[in-house]
């Protein structure tokens, strides 16, 4: 069972304020290593905001205050000594809109490595192939690695963005509604890819799509108005939720 696995991230009593508005009202949530955890809930419930506290992307927004602890490998990432640059190498992130750099596909994938000082062409070539294979896009684009990443379709761009994150070899991958801007076929390809990545990475996924959450996640957390309502095995959440709000949301009575 998932409970036996190591906890890689533990968040305890996380509050987040935009100015005076409390967007997260004390979230306590653990993520097990090499699980796919889905965060679901209606728009504005705080699931994306919570996801972005895990790699400190909320720091970039002026007027945000965060209290509570988020531990990664037992270290508080909000400790003053934390290097956010190093943190974000361990916790990669994929966004809702595919956001490839307007460079070639090859450059997109190796950008993180290059800036980390990797010069060896063989290492870079290998990283490109490995990452693109993991992102299940290698066969589609292996002959046009020097073309602009912007020439690809939305679904392909998103997989290149995922490959770009994989190339840096993070421990955890955060995905913020990665398929909501994509068509069903591209979404399906990304879901299959996530299932294959589960063996090597801890994946935390925000999604609006409940079928998606039920298809690919091991655990599901349901958020509502800044509160964590329920967190359990995905099966339990979808078949036998304990909370009334969860059941209402799952069965489509609101949201």
């Amino acid at each position, binding site marked *: 069972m998932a409970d036996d696995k190591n906890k890689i991230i533990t968040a305890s009593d996380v509050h987040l304020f935009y100015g005076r508005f409390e967007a997260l009202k004390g979230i306590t949530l653990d993520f097990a290593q090499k699980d796919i955890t889905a965060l679901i809930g209606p728009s504005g419930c705080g699931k994306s905001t919570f996801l972005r506290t895990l790699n400190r*992307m909320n720091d970039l927004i002026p007027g945000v205050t965060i209290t509570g602890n988020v531990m990664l490998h037992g270290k508080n990432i909000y400790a003053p000594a934390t290097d956010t640059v190093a943190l*974000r190498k361990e916790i990669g992130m994929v966004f809702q809109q595919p956001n490839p*750099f307007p460079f*070639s596909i090859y450059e997109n994938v190796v950008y993180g490595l290059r800036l980390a000082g990797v010069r060896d062409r063989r290492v870079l070539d290998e990283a490109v192939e490995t990452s693109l294979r993991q992102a299940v896009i290698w066969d589609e684009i292996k002959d046009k690695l020097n073309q602009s990443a912007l020439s690809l379709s939305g679904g392909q761009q998103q997989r290149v*963005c995922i490959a770009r994150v994989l190339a840096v070899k993070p421990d955890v991958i955060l995905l913020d509604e990665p398929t909501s801007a994509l068509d069903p076929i591209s979404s399906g390809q990304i879901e299959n890819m996530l299932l294959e990545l589960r063996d090597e990475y801890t994946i935390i996924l925000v999604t609006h799509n409940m079928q998606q959450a039920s298809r690919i996640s091991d655990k599901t957390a349901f958020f509502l108005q800044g509160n964590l309502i329920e967190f359990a095995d995905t099966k339990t959440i979808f078949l036998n939720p304990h909370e009334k709000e969860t059941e209402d949301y799952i069965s489509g009575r609101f949201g």
Partner: protein
Amino acid sequence: MNSKKWNTVATGILYFIAGVMILILAFLLIFILWNGLPHVSWHFLTTPARSFQTGGGIGIQLFNSFYLLFLAMLISIPISIGAGIYLSEYAKQNWLTSLIRTSIDILSSLPSIVVGLFGFLVFSIQAGLGFSILSGALALTVFNLPLLTRNVEESLNSISESQREAGLALGLSKWETVLRIIIPEALPGIVTGMILGAGRVFGEAAALIYTAGQSAPALDFTNWNPFYIASPLNPLRPAETLAVHIWKINSEGIMPDAAQVSAGASAVLIIAVLIFNFGARFISARVYGKMTGTK
């Protein structure tokens, strides 16, 4: 039916206005080139001007224009890039930065003759640089810097926020994100702005009359030591540029062929400015292609 009719009318009016604009521009270009080009020859482009006889050229003025442009851009490009990066990426929204922005906007709307008089007082008199290329370059920097800075800032601002997030989320520092992602993406816009700025500087006269001066002493093109007084590279010599030369011939030129020299010089000036404009498009397309791997 009615809205369709109005659509036709409105479209027609817009086409008419656009047509008038193009006609005016075309008329000006053709007029200047038609009158000037017959006087332009290799001899005209390379010989010094003559004050009292026919047959003078614009060689020294042409060289002065390019050298002054080079010096002015050498000073203003680094400063404008630094200031633009600061304003776009690092400055917080507060009264100080909004004061800076307002000041830049006011500075960019100063008439160039005022900039010239300011340069005369500060650089030529106070700083003791006299009528010199350096005074002129500094005055042109004052004239050009606000526009270049705003151009850099706006080019950087036009890059989507998601690109900054992508860089930071990938574990790049803020400076690496700016330097390796945002600036390369904004480079086509920045380059275009720089080249158009160069064209503006190249054609500027009023800011130079009292700073770079109105005389073009003979140059010794065999001695390139910048400290030698007649050296083309000496930044402390007075240097009349092409645009100032045109102004001067027309106001007080006494050579018999003043009209022809003026027309020829105007044609050369127009051609240079056109080259800058088309060059900006060409180079920015090339830079974009190179950055994005589409070429």
